[in-house]
């Protein structure tokens, strides 16, 4: 298996199953530490969920590009879509302190992704959103 994984999926939640399965094979093959693979797994579920559910203003079929590459010290995850311009880094920090009865339900996906990944960069070019995320590889 190569040091990279490229996937193209349709904007349909059922496609998340294909992504999870492909990354499961990748992480097992490369023996990724669980903390690292968990961060990537989580970012994939959260970001793709957001794009598919909220990214499009039409009912058309769209393609989302996913690139994962294993470098010497980092694993890099890049997700690109042609949905509406949306910078997840500008979303406000959710309430993570209120007690049960006052805690709002939802809005945690981007917060979790930001905290589990080591670096996130957003760009919007040629009508495409691109989110580039890095996680340090600490093996052993």
């Amino acid at each position, binding site marked *: 298996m190569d040091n990279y994984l490229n996937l193209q999926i349709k904007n349909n939640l059922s496609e*998340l199953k294909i992504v999870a399965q492909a990354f499961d094979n990748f992480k097992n093959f490369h023996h990724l530490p669980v903390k690292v693979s968990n961060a990537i*797994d989580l970012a994939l579920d959260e970001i793709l969920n957001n794009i598919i559910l909220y990214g499009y203003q039409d009912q058309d079929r769209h393609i989302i590009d996913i690139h994962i590459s294993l470098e010497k010290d980092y694993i890099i995850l890049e997700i690109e879509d042609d949905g509406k311009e949306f910078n997840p880094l500008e979303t406000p920090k959710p309430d993570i302190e209120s007690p049960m009865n006052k805690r709002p339900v939802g809005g945690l996906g981007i917060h979790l992704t930001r905290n589990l990944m080591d670096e996130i960069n957003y760009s919007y070019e040629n009508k495409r959103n691109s989110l580039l995320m890095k996680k340090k590889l600490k093996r052993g």
Partner: protein
Amino acid sequence: MEIMQTTQNDTIILGLKGRLDTLSSTELEKTLADLLAEKKYKLVIDFSDLDFISSSGLRVLLATGKQLKSVGGKIVLCALQNHVKEVFDVAGFTMLFVLYPSRDEAVKGIA
């Protein structure tokens, strides 16, 4: 994800296996809604075989926790793997739920 349901006295124990993500969280949501409809208000969720949780899973747990609180019920969780616990910590969920190290302790704790 697989959900294995067992009953001990008046407590329902749900053992989750696999991934609790965008796709599978609807399954857990339905199981929990059915239990609440049957007035099963004491729930233990066993996380020992759960390998992954995302915000979709947290959403279902929080919504259920709120409902149980409003009817005087209880939900406790047990045996979270470290990387799953990390997600709870980052989301501020560790303070919302009572977490036990093992199923036995959770069942004793909720009784």
